[in-house]
């Protein structure tokens, strides 16, 4: 109910001319500076609306006259980092391992890149520092299935093991028990013999030795020394991928476990794979 705008006798302020049940409202306007800032922000938002992406369409959006995009910014930042590193990474890609190792600075860059990439990608299976765990080779120990030279390691990382690629490391141990190649008793005998290879004697194992010579020696070698061309593990050593108790040996002959390592060539370029190879080689197992 509008009333007369008048001066309030108690406070000395003007009223707004509104009255409710006898209560009059004092006119206390916002400070001028506050109002001007409000107007300035409105003006700013109008300009912003035109310059920057602001209106969503059904199948896209208004890009703004500046054409700014956060995704582009990230792409540029990533490209800048790649470019910054390219001086080193290009040289790592093109130089031979021997030449990289001759350049202490380049070698240090490769080892650092390899260390970090290893921690982010390889460590879950191979363990920190390549310590390995049952079923996953200890890279630091040098018990290589496929060879521990730099070129061997590069090949393994690039294509993986049983990864499904044509160039992948590929080996197959027959399931002597599951597919009936050996009878359970024969498996027990050959297991007893295999255990003598790493110093766990078990009396007369002549029968097992014969079975071994007929079935196993072609891949694992006459004395269980292993053959890298087939990726056949060395049995005569004291470090074994899956373990060395009788139970495990029998299980491994009956229905062997064969681990898979993915190929990394889809994720890393050659320079990074070579850096990884250098790092893995440096862990103590390199040949």
């Amino acid at each position, binding site marked *: 109910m509008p009333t007369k705008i008048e001066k309030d006798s108690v406070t000395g302020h003007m009223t707004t001319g509104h009255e409710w049940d006898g209560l009059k409202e004092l006119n206390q306007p916002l400070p001028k500076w506050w109002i001007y800032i409000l107007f300035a922000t409105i003006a700013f938002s109008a300009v912003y609306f035109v310059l920057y992406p602001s209106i969503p369409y059904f199948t896209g959006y208004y890009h703004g006259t500046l054409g700014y995009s956060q995704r582009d910014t990230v792409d540029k930042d990533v490209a800048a980092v790649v470019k910054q590193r390219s001086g080193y990474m290009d040289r790592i890609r093109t130089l031979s391992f021997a030449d990289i190792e001759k350049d202490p600075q380049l070698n240090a860059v490769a080892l650092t890149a390899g260390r970090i990439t290893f921690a982010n990608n390889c460590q879950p299976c191979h*363990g920190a*520092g390549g310590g390995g765990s049952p079923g996953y080779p200890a890279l630091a*120990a*040098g018990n290589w299935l496929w060879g521990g030279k730099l070129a061997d390691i590069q090949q393994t990382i690039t294509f993986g093991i049983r990864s499904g690629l044509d160039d992948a490391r590929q080996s197959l141990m027959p399931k002597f028990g599951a597919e009936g190649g050996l009878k359970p008793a024969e498996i027990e005998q050959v297991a007893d013999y295999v255990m003598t290879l790493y110093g766990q004697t078990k009396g007369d194992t002549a029968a097992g030795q014969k079975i071994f010579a007929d079935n196993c020696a072609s891949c694992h070698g006459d004395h269980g020394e292993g053959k890298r061309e087939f990726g056949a593990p060395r049995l005569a050593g004291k470090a074994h991928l899956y373990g060395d108790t009788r139970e495990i040996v029998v299980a491994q002959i009956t229905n062997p476990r064969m681990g898979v390592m993915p190929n990394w060539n889809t994720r890393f370029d050659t320079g990074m794979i070579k850096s990884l190879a250098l790092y893995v080689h*440096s862990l103590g197992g390199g040949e």
Partner: protein
Amino acid sequence: MSHVGSVQKRQQVVQEEEVQHLYANRVRVYPKTVKGPVRRFKWAVLIFCLTLYYALPWLRWTRSPAQPSQAVLLDLWHERFYFFNLEFWPQDIYYLTGLLIMGAVSLFLVTSLVGRVWCGYTCPQTVWTDLFMWIEAKIEGDRNERMKRDAAPMSFDKVWRKVAKHAAWVFIAFWTGGAWIMYYVDAPTVTVEFWTGTASSQVYFFTGLFTATTYLLAGWAREQVCTYMCPWPRFQAAMLDEQSLTVTYQAWRGEPRTRGKRVDGAGGDCVDCNACVTACPTGIDIRDGIQLECINCGLCIDACNHVMERTGRPKWLITWDTYADQAAKAAGQHAAFRFFRPRTIIYLSALVIAAGAMVVALMLRPGIGLSVQHDRAALFVRLASGDLRNGYTIKVVNKAQSPAIFEISTLGLPNAVLTESVENLGPASQLGLPVKADSVGTFHVFVSGQPAMLKDGSSAIDFALRDTLTGELTTYHSVFMGPNTETRP
């Protein structure tokens, strides 16, 4: 209404209360220039201190070609401190502790003997303040002239003198800050770099910082630094005793103070001229006795001697004396100064012990250093031979000025075999690690051992390092790890 009333009543009470201020406004000190033996001695000390400060960085010293040729250089960038023929590494930081202990005890000793002469003569705050006051007097005149001009309205004379004074202060402050930098970087090099604009931004920053602090502390803050910022005056009371020589007004001679002409025999020697007060750089009255503002500079002695001469009284009404002697003199006797007291003997022996320990430590300082860090992962690996292998990062310090081969071997693990993966050394029971001159060599050493040699899965081992040139030997304790449960017999 009652609420409003109580508020008003409270405000009234506050207004009626006398407000007690805990802050005392500074009373500006206008020290009067004095002449005399004390002043001359103070000038001599000042010139010596400033010469030392400005000249020391320029002193050259012959070292190996790879090292800086500055005699005193705190080379933070390369983590070395050169002091004539001594060279300190960051590991030697504990010598600083020894130096600080010696500094503190020396200060205690000197103060207990002759009062706060450090404050009065050699403290940088005193030296630079004195220098700044001298410039002030040269440009603005002595005490009375300065006071008159400060009270007078703005004039051309006042402005140019103030501008000239502050310009001179800033100029000196700049040279002070610039000289400070020379203790951290090679003096001739940084001078050229500074003026050709090629010095690092830190050099400009710290020169600016020390220029600012010198200008503010010596020009503006002056005696307030001593009175309010410095902790030393606060425990002066614990350092002084009745046997300490301090600047003393001989009250038994001076009192009662008598102004003007006097009847023969009546009154003391003090003519209450206030010369000692106007000469005081901290603005106190020495006749009130020893007080924390007194920096023991003795300028009041010169001021008083001058007056005593003119009034035909014996000099040294204000003098250096002990409290004990003053008490004796008041009774017509004399108490000799005692150099050896329990306090000084304790300080002196602490000083001798600290100095001796420093010298011995410096002479026995190892030129070799070893640190061993076991790899965090993998803790160990099992080799095909059944042996266990642990990896260690080994750092070897070579303080010598020539490259050296250090032999490393292990103790406590029989038949251990060492290999090194950075330099491709070994396998052998002992490796020769090459370390460049004046640097730290980092190596990654693998140690292989037989599981049978381990007890409870691990074994304590010591790495022994021997300098093949000097034969110096050092060891480092570490551990060789294996699986906790050895399942195979």
